[in-house]
């Protein structure tokens, strides 16, 4: 295996390990609740005070 391939393999490992270890809350981010909360927040931009 050349050095370039070893580097790419290491990089792929780093990326996979990052996503695996962080326990990202995608389900929560793409939920209806999240969309509603974002919508409400953006809606506040357009309401004059």
């Amino acid at each position, binding site marked *: 295996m050349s050095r370039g391939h070893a580097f790419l393999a290491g990089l792929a490992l780093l*990326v996979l390990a990052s*996503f695996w270890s962080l326990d990202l*809350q995608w389900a929560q981010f793409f939920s209806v609740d999240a969309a509603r909360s974002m919508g409400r927040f953006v809606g506040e931009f357009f309401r004059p005070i």
Partner: protein
Amino acid sequence: MSAAGSPALHDPAWLGRVFWLGAGLALLWPLGLATEFRPWVLLEPGSLLVAARFLGDFFPPSLQPDFLMLVARETWRTVAMATAGITLALLLAIPLTLLSTRVLSISALSGHMASGPFWFRQLLRWLMIVLRSVPELVWALVFVRVVGLGPTAGVLAIALTYGGMLGKVYGEILESSDGQVGEALLRCGCGRLQTFFYALLPQNAAELCSYTVYRWECAIRSSVVLGFVGAGGLGQQLDGAMKMFNGAEVSTMLLVFMALVALADRASAWLRKEMA
């Protein structure tokens, strides 16, 4: 006669220079007052004592085994947040670059880009401006409302801001290179992706890589700042240690940051050498 005393060596414009220096200071004075810029507060005995005690604690750095384990775990979290953020940013930036760069326009070969493609590219540029003009801290605060405290908000914030930055700079790197090779391929009937892979990428690979690694380094720094608003990682620990005035722990974590930045620097230098 000495050289300094020679009339020929006097600055003929000294009066103007002194005047403009004074005018500059006179203009700065109200700005200093308006921003409450009072550096002498730092030199008051009370502040000096607190600062000296805090800085004195920096040495020796804290090296207790359980603290080092905690730092190692949080360092990995910080690196993972930066890496995941940059990966998502690349997923956003690469298509945006390919779609918005001028050098891959076929209608521009005739000298003037058609209005449809022009406005399409302009629209994407505006999208990138919106993405990167909102600081990652603000994105993080928005996402913390949605997904709660934790790394998800930090990763998303880095992905959006850095997606905009990477897309813009990649596009500019491609446009500033020698366009003749790409133009020749496009004129011969090659597709845009073929032109990108066979003309633009080989010409600019080293620069694109170096900029990406630099942005990864920035993302590490930025994930530290995001830790302050609850995204986790070293930043959150640093925030806690600062608030407790625990200088030994702060200095250990600052040393870890320096090591990370040095590592990114080495990686970038090695990559550029390998690609040259």
